[in-house]
C-alpha cells in the first residue's frame, strides 16, 4: 500500500445533475505536486472491519493549480461501494489519498491533438485541454453528453469555447456518435494523436471506427476507467493436490485448473459448466485452505472451507487434500 496523505474537502458542488465536483486541499497545507494532464489519484475508501477499497479518479487541475486536487465524480447509485460513498462526503471532512499516477499522458511528439470525451470521461480530457490551451497548442475537444445540462466544469471550458476548439455533441444515439466519430477520425493529419475517455461502449466505438479509418495504432490513447484492480492474491501460484481415496498426488501449475491437472494424472472428475457456477464438480476438502474462485458456494460455505469447486478454485496453501 503506497503512502497515503490526509486531505480536507474544501469545496463541493454539483457541476451536473449527477456529477459532484470536489476541491480537496492537503490537511498539512503544503502544495500538491504539479499535475501532469491525464493523471489520476488513488482514493482510500475506509470500510469497517475490511481492508480499504481503492478507487482511481482523474484530476481536472489546470496547469499551476497546486493548492488543491480538483475532481469530478459521477454518482453511480449502487456502485461497488465507490462513488456512492464519496457523494456523502461533505466540506470539512478528511479523506486519505494515495499515489498520483499517469497512464494517459499527452504525447510529446504530437503536433495536433484530438480530444474525445464521453460523459464522465471529460475529467482527464479537461486537464489536457487546459494544458494545451495554456501552451496554445493545436487541439480540438469533442465532448459527447446526454443533454446540455450534463456538460461538466463549464467554467473551465470557457477559453476552449472562445477559441472555437470545444464541440459539444448532445443526445446522440449509438449510430449518431458513430457517425460523428467516423467524420473526426477520417484521415489523421501527420503527427496527430487522439485521446479518448468515457464509458466502455463509447471507447469501443472509438476503437472500432479508428481501426476502420486506419488511424495509426501508436496515435490512439485510451483511459480505461475499469482498470482491472490489481488484487494482491489474484496472482496464481502453483500448488500440490492429493486425492485422499487414491493417494495420487499431482502438481497444479499456474494457469492450470485442478481438474486439468487431475485429468493429466488420469483422474476424471465430472464437470458441466467448467466456470465454477453449476456445482457438478462440488468436492469435499480434507485439509488445506481452498482459494475460492466460484460463484456457487454461499458465504458460510466459503468461510467454512470444507467444500471446493475444483473446476475454477485453487489453493492458498502449498498442499490441498481432496476427498476424491
Amino acid at each position, binding site marked *: 500500500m503506497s503512502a497515503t496523505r490526509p486531505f480536507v474537502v474544501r469545496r463541493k458542488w454539483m457541476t451536473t445533475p449527477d456529477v459532484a465536483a470536489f476541491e480537496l486541499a492537503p490537511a498539512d497545507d503544503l502544495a500538491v505536486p504539479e499535475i501532469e494532464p491525464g493523471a489520476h489519484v488513488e482514493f482510500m475508501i475506509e470500510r469497517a472491519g475490511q481492508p480499504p477499497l481503492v478507487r482511481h479518479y482523474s484530476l481536472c487541475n489546470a496547469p499551476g493549480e497546486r493548492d488543491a486536487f480538483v475532481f469530478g465524480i459521477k454518482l453511480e447509485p449502487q456502485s461497488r461501494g465507490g462513488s456512492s460513498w464519496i457523494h456523502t462526503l461533505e466540506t470539512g471532512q478528511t479523506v486519505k489519498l494515495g499515489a498520483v499516477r499517469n497512464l494517459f499522458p499527452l504525447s510529446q511528439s504530437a503536433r495536433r491533438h484530438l480530444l474525445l470525451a464521453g460523459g464522465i470521461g471529460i475529467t482527464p480530457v479537461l486537464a489536457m485541454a487546459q494544458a494545451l490551451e495554456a501552451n496554445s497548442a493545436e487541439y480540438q475537444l469533442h465532448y459527447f453528453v446526454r443533454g446540455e445540462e450534463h456538460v461538466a466544469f463549464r467554467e473551465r471550458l470557457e477559453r476552449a469555447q472562445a477559441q472555437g476548439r470545444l464541440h459539444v455533441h448532445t443526445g446522440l444515439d449509438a449510430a449518431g456518435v458513430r457517425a460523428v466519430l467516423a467524420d473526426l477520425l477520417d484521415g489523421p493529419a501527420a503527427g496527430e494523436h487522439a485521446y479518448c475517455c468515457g464509458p466502455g461502449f463509447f471507447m469501443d466505438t472509438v476503437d472500432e471506427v479508428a481501426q476502420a479509418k486506419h488511424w495509426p495504432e501508436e496515435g490512439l490513447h485510451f483511459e480505461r476507467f475499469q482498470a482491472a484492480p490489481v488484487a494482491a492474491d489474484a496472482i496464481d501460484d502453483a500448488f500440490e493436490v492429493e486425492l485422499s481415496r487414491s493417494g495420487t498426488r499431482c502438481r497444479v501449475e499456474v494457469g492450470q485448473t485442478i481438474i486439468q491437472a487431475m485429468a493429466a494424472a488420469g483422474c476424471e472428475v465430472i*464437470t*458441466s*459448466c*467448467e*466456470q465454477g457456477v453449476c456445482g457438478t464438480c462440488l468436492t469435499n476438502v480434507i485439509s488445506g485452505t481452498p482459494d475460492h474462485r466460484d460463484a456457487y458456494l454461499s458465504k458460510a460455505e466459503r468461510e467454512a472451507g470444507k467444500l471446493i469447486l475444483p473446476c475454477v478454485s485453487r489453493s492458498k496453501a502449498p498442499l490441498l487434500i481432496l476427498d476424491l
Partner: protein
Amino acid sequence: MNSPIGVEMQSQIWQPVLPSHYLRASKNIVAGFLQGQELALWRSEAGAVQAWENRCPHRGTRLTIGRILNDQLSCAYHGWEFDTRGGCTAIPANPSLPLPKQLRVKSFPVAEADGMVWVSAAAGNAAASQALPPTSTGALAFFCRSLGIRAPMGDVATELNAQGFKATGAQTWEGTLAGQAATVLLNEATSLRTFAHVWLSEEPAAAALSDVLAKCRLFRRDVEARASSRSS
C-alpha cells in the same frame, strides 16, 4: 415429452422427417418429430444437415425459435451459439470466460436420401447407428406435400394397404393417387400423429396435381375416421 418411446421395431430405426428442400443453407430452423422426440433441424452453409434434440442445454429453450447467425445456431433466449458439431461456441453474457468444452447439444444420426432428410431415433445406440440409411427404392421425382394425420402410423399403413399401396421398403409404400404413380413415406411423429410425405414419380400437370392433393385430403379423412372409430 422429450423421451423417445424406445425403438421396438428394428426396421424403423431411420425415418423420413422432412423434405430436403425445406432446409435452406444457413437460413432456417425446422422442427422435426420422431417417435415423441422433438427435433430441431438446420442446414449449414456447406450443405450438411444437423438433427438436434429441440432443447438448449443452458435453460431448455426450444432451438426451433432461435435463428441462424454466421452459420451457427443462436438460441433465442440468451444468444448462446452452437456450431455444426453441436459444440457451444459463444456465450454472449460472459464473452471473456472459457467456453465449457464438454457442453454439447444432443444430436441424432441424420442422412439425406430420396429427397428426404432421414433421422435415426436411436441416438447414441451404437448398433442402430450402424444401420445404413435407406437407398432409393421408388421413383421420387416430384414432392407433392407432407400430410399431417391425427392417427397412429399403424392406421395410416392399414389405409394405404386398403387403397392398393404396397410396402416396398423402410417406411415406404408405392401405389397410385388419382391416377398418378406415387410413393408415400411415413414418419411416426408421436404415438398419435403421423406425417405422410407424398411424392409422385413425375411432375404432374396442374389439374392432375390438384386431383392428387384432393385425394390426399380424402385419404387423411378416411384414416382419421378409422382411428377415431377404433378409439371412441
